[in-house]
């Protein structure tokens, strides 16, 4: 009984200390279908201070949208005897296919570097789990190379003023997904920061999936390789043959 009382008390105490964060996303499912050229997600919500009032405290908001992670090998080209070829390589065990950060102020002004690294507040802090090369300098070079590559592909990005807060309560951020996004479950994490500390956080998910014909094509290619290949050949030959016939008649 004594333990239970302590637990309830602790819950109440913590409930009183932590601000409340109510996040929402404009869509929980991104449908990739014919004509998909990318989309924009609106991450919005409200933040209240522990007493349940809004607009009393100046919270900063940081949102992190992350795609599924996959193991990759990053190769680096160098000049060997006048020819540019792959030389060194580095493995990353968990490179997210998409990563975007938006914050209400530049992250450096909100939290210190250590906190930023813990919560992945920025493309410099993505936890990629490098393995292979142990030399930290080389590891840094590879990490920067990967981030730079994916940044230019529109897959990794940060917007240091991307979150707008109105009346100290309502916040919103827009994050664009390019057409080359990989399907999977994306997580959107929202953090309320006060006085250099993360005081509240909430997670929600966005499913990026192919639908309709696009889904059918992908599934067939993955699961029925032989039939898919034969259909592709058949399609190819029929089109060629029909065109030949048409032109012969003309």
């Amino acid at each position, binding site marked *: 009984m004594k333990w239970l009382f302590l637990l309830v008390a602790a819950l109440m105490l913590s409930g009183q200390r932590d601000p409340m964060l109510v996040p929402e996303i404009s869509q929980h499912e991104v449908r990739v279908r*014919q004509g998909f*050229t990318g989309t924009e997600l609106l991450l919005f919500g409200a933040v209240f201070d522990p007493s349940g009032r809004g607009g009393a405290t100046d919270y900063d908001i940081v949102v992190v949208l992350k795609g599924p992670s996959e193991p990759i*090998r990053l190769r680096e080209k160098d000049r060997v005897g006048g020819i540019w070829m*792959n030389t060194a390589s580095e493995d990353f065990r968990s490179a997210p296919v998409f990563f975007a950060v938006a914050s209400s102020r530049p992250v450096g002004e909100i939290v210190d570097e250590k906190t930023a690294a813990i919560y992945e507040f920025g493309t410099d802090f993505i936890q990629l789990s490098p393995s292979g090369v142990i030399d930290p300098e080389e590891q840094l070079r590879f990490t920067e190379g990967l981030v730079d590559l994916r940044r230019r592909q529109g897959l990794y990005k940060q917007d240091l003023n991307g979150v707008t807060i109105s009346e100290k309560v309502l916040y919103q951020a827009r994050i664009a997904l390019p057409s080359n996004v990989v399907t999977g479950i994306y997580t959107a994490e929202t953090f309320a920061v006060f006085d250099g500390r993360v005081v509240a956080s909430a997670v929600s998910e966005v499913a990026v999936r192919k639908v309709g014909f696009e889904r059918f094509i992908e599934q067939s290619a993955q699961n029925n*390789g032989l039939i898919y290949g034969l259909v*592709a050949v058949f399609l190819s030959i029929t089109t*060629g043959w029909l065109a030949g016939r048409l032109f012969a008649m003309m």
Partner: protein
Amino acid sequence: MDVYLPIANLAVNGLLIVALGGLTGILSGLFGVGGGFLTTPLLIFYGVPPTVAAASASTQVTGASVSGVIAQSSRGGVDYQMGGVLIVGGMIGAVLGALLFRFFQSIGQIDVVINILYVLMLGTIGAMMAREALQTLLRKQGDKPEVRRRRHHPMVSALPLRWRFYRSGLYISPLAPLILGVGVGILTMLMGVGGGFILVPAMLYILGMSANVVVGTSLFNILFVTIVTTITHSLTTKAVDMVLVALLLIGSVTGAQLGTKIAFQFKPELLRLALAAIVLVIAFIMLFRLGVRPDEVYSVQLL
């Protein structure tokens, strides 16, 4: 017109892809090459992942060569016997090529191997063709009707077991086209191309085939080798993008017909000179790109 490619995971401008297909189609009808050596690099340049580009381009080449083969065979331009021997060699070569591809990919050097192969093959063949075509053209301008005998390479006549290839006008060992087929098959798998730009000059200058069956027979071989390549890709890399193939096909089947029509209006020497020029330009660009710092120093490979 935006079209989403489900396997490449990318939205592209559909009309641009159709136009690219059309360009390859014209080349294929005109010269009997599949045009893969142009499609694959251009698709990669556009942002399509390299494996998807190579796999889909080979499927498209199938379609482009069907209409080419039909157009050529109605004019008696296909030596099916020679084509059959080449195809058998091509299939052996495709298997060997797949093994080599996997090896070079595992050590991360497949890109540089492909590029060097392109430069060497295109450079040599381009130069050979240009020289021969120029010589023929100049001789004709000199107005001396000097009939030069078609000759095959001395090494070819050294091979045992001779067959008669009536349409090609040859009496040579089938081992020669078989070995040629194996070589082209290896290159098809490695370079993601139909191999016509190697096959056509090799048929002319190594086998010494009669020029009027070279284009048709080459297309006939390409047709079958690309079918095998498509099936292999569908089973292993799963990188054939049906939507991309369809777009390329619309352009290329139309282009192939146009190309064949144009081809019958020009002197074969002139056509060969034009092909030689295109081949040399591409070889030069690739050589240049090997030596300059690439746009992307880093590349990602999925594990």
